[in-house]
């Protein structure tokens, strides 16, 4: 099964039967729980001189200077700073308007040219914590075109993640100003990204507090394997796709190596 952090619990919770009254593979009650995203902070600096602008790879440098827990910072875990290239023409305009650096009217062209090819910055990919109250359940009313109950998402951005983003904005602003930025824009959390879906069918050895075992097989249903973001136990402060791919290879290897006793 590979429907990711919302699709997988939706399918499992919809798969109720006399044998599995709370949904398939849900004896722990954890299917759908611990939903995690990646809260992103975006920080951009505007420079007086022309930069390389929109050319080059999108993400050039990563820093995990603030990745590990430091109790002095007031939050646990941390974030990756992903330094990005500048923005192409349309994105420059959209960002400038959203942050009121570019206006409608006569000033538009001068405003725009103060930003275009003169803006660069970074995002902070923050590690969200697993929390039981952040969850995917089934919507009591909403159904899809086949009449199947839709997922319902309950999520509250934690104080820990908020403090982490505030720290990221402060540190990234410091970095950009030290590099010569004359103006800094920030947005935390961004609304247009970071919606990585993780944690809702977590992996673990103990069937009482996990949905799949340490090699991806459901504790309750011996021929059910999950290979997507839902089996993450923590979100990490990096994008999840490579880890999902690695887990898929790992679980496939486990299946192959255990073929003789796979469903025991």
């Amino acid at each position, binding site marked *: 099964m590979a429907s990711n952090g919302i699709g997988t619990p939706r399918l499992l919770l919809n798969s109720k039967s006399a044998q599995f009254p709370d949904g398939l593979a849900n004896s722990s009650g954890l299917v759908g729980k611990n939903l995690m995203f990646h809260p992103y902070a975006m920080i951009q600096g505007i420079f007086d001189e022309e930069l390389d602008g929109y050319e080059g790879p999108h993400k050039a440098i990563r820093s995990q200077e603030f990745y590990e827990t430091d109790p002095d910072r007031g939050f646990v875990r941390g974030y990756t700073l992903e330094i990005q290239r500048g923005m192409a023409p*349309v994105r420059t*305009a959209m960002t400038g308007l959203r942050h009121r650096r570019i206006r409608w009217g006569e000033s538009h062209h001068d405003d725009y040219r103060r930003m275009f090819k003169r803006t660069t910055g970074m995002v902070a990919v923050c590690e969200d914590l697993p929390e039981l109250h952040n969850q995917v359940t089934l919507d009591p009313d909403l159904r899809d075109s086949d009449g199947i109950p839709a997922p319902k998402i309950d999520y509250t951005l934690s104080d820990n993640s908020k403090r982490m983003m505030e720290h990221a904005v402060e540190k990234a602003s410091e970095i950009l100003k030290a590099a010569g930025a004359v103006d800094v824009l920030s947005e935390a959390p961004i609304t247009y990204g970071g919606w990585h879906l993780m944690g809702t069918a977590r992996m673990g050895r103990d069937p009482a507090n996990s949905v799949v075992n340490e090699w991806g097989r459901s504790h309750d249903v011996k021929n059910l394997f999950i290979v997507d973001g839902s089996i993450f136990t923590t979100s990490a402060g990096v994008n999840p796709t490579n880890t999902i791919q690695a887990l898929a290879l790992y679980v496939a290897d486990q299946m192959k190596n255990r073929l003789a006793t796979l469903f025991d």
Partner: protein
Amino acid sequence: MTNPIALTHDEMQTLAALANIIIPPSEAYGVPGAGDPEICLSIAAGARKTERLQQAIGELNALAETTRGAPFAELDSNKRAATAEQFQHDHAGSANMIEALTMQAYYRDRRVMASLGMEPRPPFPEGYRPPEGDWSLLEPVRRRAPLFRKAD
């Protein structure tokens, strides 16, 4: 102005008038305003749902008629500017949609890109159309070691 999409002539006039307020022409930079006919068609064509764009234009005209007694495109420039400002405040969702469509159309216009020192093509890899049947661009990929693990 030919109009291949569903906007009426009056709706296009209103859209052009608003687009020219958002981005007026500039002699200094040698660029047209966003109300330029070619750009305006591109703005209208960019709408995911034409009905939603028509609704937004209708809201702007209704506001102009209610507050200043005439359709938006018939107002003088001061009244248009004041109405546009009020539109941003009172109908933020519609104003934001038109603003986004305007930016997407304007900053890919070849004249505007030229004024920014850009050629109207994707930057990488060079953005030129390769000769028909020439697959040599793929040679580095063919020479590269596999990125994948072969199944046993």
